[in-house]
């Protein structure tokens, strides 16, 4: 069986004054029609991994890999023109800074309509109706007003929900969602997650879900990659994330405040230089948590 996505030995580098900085250092993973979580500390290379798949790394940054296969077809040799056909149609990405990805001088509704018409050649009135339905689907309370609003007139969470709605329009085979629900209250977050979940279950969409919220990833995803310093240090079934063994993952789990057990100070992570040196865990290796 061919995987939906097969990434082998992905590297992302940036030239800096202090020499070449390796943001992603040989990451490999495979993804089926499932929810794959990526967690890991700030700066560990999560966003760059997602962006590199779509070749969205700004110059002078560079991407290299043995292959990045979508449905068995390698994306690496593709021209920029071919990549444009992949982007947004077969693979969509919800960026970490939603308002930054929206056009600041165009009304939100027009942006959604444009995205919809690009995808479906619908009439204007049909696109308008669908755009309003989408706003409602992501629990926007007054869709008519928000339709006419500019991005700076949205709350943080409204911007995120609009980006998610827009990215789902082309019915992508793979959605890369970078911190898609970090600005949502838990109740609205649940509604938005249900939409993505349904697309995975009913349409066979693949989902890469990048998040800092370990509890959420454990409950929502099927599998998790745990990244540190540009590598995958551990991978496990999402439901067993709380049994993870790597001291780094344990450190992350222990640094979360808990609503039921008050503490004066939160535990902080003590980083071990050896974590950086250990090779990345590959897709077929079983350095996984087993029963």
């Amino acid at each position, binding site marked *: 069986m061919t995987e939906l996505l097969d990434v082998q030995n992905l590297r992302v580098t940036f030239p800096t004054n202090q020499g070449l900085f390796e943001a992603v250092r040989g990451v490999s993973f495979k993804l089926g029609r499932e929810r794959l979580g990526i967690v890991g500390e*700030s700066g560990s290379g999560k966003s760059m991994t997602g962006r590199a798949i779509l070749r969205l790394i700004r110059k002078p940054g560079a991407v290299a890999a043995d292959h990045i296969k979508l449905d068995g077809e390698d994306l690496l040799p593709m021209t920029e023109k071919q990549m444009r056909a992949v982007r947004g149609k077969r693979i969509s990405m919800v960026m970490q800074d939603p308002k930054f990805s929206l056009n600041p001088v165009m009304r939100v509704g027009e942006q959604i309509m444009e995205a919809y018409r690009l995808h479906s050649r619908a009439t204007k009135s049909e696109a308008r109706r669908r755009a309003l339905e989408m706003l409602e*689907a992501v629990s926007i309370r007054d869709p008519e007003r928000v339709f006419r609003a500019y991005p700076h007139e949205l709350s943080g*969470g*409204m911007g995120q929900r609009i980006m998610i709605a827009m990215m789902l*329009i082309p019915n992508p085979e793979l959605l890369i969602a970078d911190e898609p629900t970090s600005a949502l209250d838990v109740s609205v977050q649940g509604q938005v997650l249900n939409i993505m979940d349904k697309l995975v279950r009913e349409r066979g969409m693949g989902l890469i879900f990048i998040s800092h919220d370990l509890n959420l990833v454990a409950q929502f995803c099927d599998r998790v990659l745990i990244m540190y310093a540009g590598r995958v240090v551990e991978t496990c079934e999402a439901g067993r994330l709380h049994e993870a063994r790597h001291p780094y993952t344990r450190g992350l*789990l222990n640094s979360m*405040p808990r609503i039921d057990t008050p503490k004066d100070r939160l535990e902080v*992570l003590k980083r071990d230089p050896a974590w950086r040196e250990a090779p990345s865990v590959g897709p077929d290796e079983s350095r996984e948590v087993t029963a």
Partner: protein
Amino acid sequence: MSAALSFRDLKVWFGEGRDHVMAVKGATFEVARGESFGLVGESGSGKSTIMRALTGLAPDWSGEMAVDSRPVPQGPKRDAAFYKKVQMVFQDPYASLHPRHSIDQVLSETLKLHGYTDIERRIEKLLSDVGLGPAFRFRYPHQLSGGQRQRVAIARALAPEPEILLLDEPTSALDVSVQAEILNLLSDLRSEHDLTFLMVSHNLSVVAHMCSQSAVMQQGEIVELLTTEDLRRHAARHPYTQRLLRAAEGYVRDEDAAGGAEAVA
């Protein structure tokens, strides 16, 4: 004891005609000196707007706002003394950092503006306080990860040594280990300097850890004031708060979710 922050029947609105929106519909609460107070609730319910009205970024409002019992004037103007006393960390760190200013420029300008002279020493201290090494000092915002940018925004707010910090989702872009470091730092600063915090967060565990009480907002209204004891015990009275606390127990897959997916795709 006088309050560090007080809001009385605050209403804030935007737009006109059919685009009119009453974003805050009569909010009343006080934050005592040295207290940490949480604002939680629905996305779009007016939490950021309360902070923006206080700092002069949402000009249309009525009611009363006061800082240390001194009324906040109408209009966008706040004097230098206000910004020395009150600083805000914005929800959206990308939008709040100038794209062509390096981290060094951002911090040194803020420090100079507030009359400091030992700029070097202070920049180093600020960066190390928020866990960014000296290597980051001459980078630009687009060369940082989301969480690194948020830490720069926090360093900038701490630079004038404010007495009151308005923190809008200060750690939602941070991983849990950096979150722990930042929250510990904020707690230390609060106890050392008797700082007052008003803090928005969607993470109820973070609110419970940091704040002694919180206001719960929905559709522009404060529906309930909760002590952290109540929060921990799930002792909420308002149906919205009860729903929120239930949702906070964890995501549950909705096997027959209605609508949603059809509408978006």
